[in-house]
């Protein structure tokens, strides 16, 4: 769910259900590494609700695009970690 304004596409808050620090902290990290982002952070409104609010403010680009790009980046990072890990384990076993 995205909350933003129609006029200003570059700043909005994304509210994700059924998530917690596991995803939110890593997303915040990849968002920070993007040079188009001026501000990003996440908060958990209440620990009993499994809901995360991620705030993104960019230098002009639409925030949803930037958010999607950083999700893609996170996926690629994880895939790379997985393949490196598999190689390391097979090397260790031999």
């Amino acid at each position, binding site marked *: 769910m995205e909350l933003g304004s129609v006029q200003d596409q570059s700043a909005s808050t994304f509210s994700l259900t059924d998530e917690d620090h*596991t995803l939110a902290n890593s997303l915040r990290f990849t968002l*920070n590494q993007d040079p188009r982002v001026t501000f990003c952070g996440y908060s958990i409104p209440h620990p009993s609700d499994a809901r995360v609010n991620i705030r993104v403010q960019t230098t002009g680009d639409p925030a949803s695009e930037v958010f999607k790009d950083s999700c893609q980046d996170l996926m690629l990072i994880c895939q*790379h*970690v997985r393949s490196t890990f598999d190689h390391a384990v097979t090397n260790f076993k031999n």
Partner: protein
Amino acid sequence: MAKTENIQYSGAYASMGVDNSLRLDQFRSNFKVEVMRLNEDDMEFDMIGIDPSIANAFRRILIAELPTMAIEKVLIANNTSVIQDEVLAHRLGLIPIKVDPRLFDYMSENDVPNEKNTIVFKLHVRCERGDARLTEKRRLTGMTIFTEVVVLIFNWLVTEWYFKMAMACYAVTSDELKWLPNGSEFLLATENSASNSTSRPKTYTSFSCSQDSLPQFSKNPITLKHPDIIIAKLGLGQEIELEAHAVKGMGKTHAKWSPVATAWYRMLPEAVLLQEIQDEKATELVQKCPTKVFDIEDVGKGKKRATVGRPRDCTLCRECIRGEGWENYVALRRVKDHLI
């Protein structure tokens, strides 16, 4: 004192003209994984070049979101032991089962238990006379010979007659749980028992085929990981008869479904010698550290110098900076992107 966060903002160094933004290729070329130790039950490895937030996400996923099989429903037919039903069911749920959870599906509220989502175990034990698996051992105390002999005879009488009759104990271990590949054996109480049933009588699970016949299980039967876990202890004449159904779940719902005992990470500690340390100070430094992190290196001319030999063993106990003025010689920090 030990700074552990990174400067993550991509524009943080913009005024200095340094580009701090992450590019995937840079990450790919720098990232390394080294495995230190790999057994069946535990593993230690290093990740170099990754940020702690992603490593923490992996740790959280390991603990909470990997599926396993664990006993969820326990159908108790007879329990005359001193362990209450619910305590027994709780203990059964925590027993680890040696099976690959990827071979099974999740079971939701509306599903019927069938061979694709349930494993059925049976436990039927009874403690009979003469079955004493646990007996106490008496120790001889320093009394006179006569009293010792009397005590011995008394103990023998007690052990043979009274003890065996009343206080025999039978420890139910987890290898008593037998896997039933054909499903549940307890019959469902149906309303119309007068109807002629040409098919098999209905049980609590509807297995359409025996799990034994599935290719994955025909050679490796499903067992428990540790056959020597004590589930309960029975006195004489007590009996437990129950059936346990195991389903797939995640650690998020209940800790019995967590596949790891625990998972943690730490950053590599780094001990930096700010100044050259020589001779007596060097030997003193080497003796101070309880985990022997520092080493002595001989640099020609009979002089000794201290170096950091094994930073991995450092527990950051700060012994080496305890005395006066030592803080100028040694600085303890953590390497920010080397995770163990």
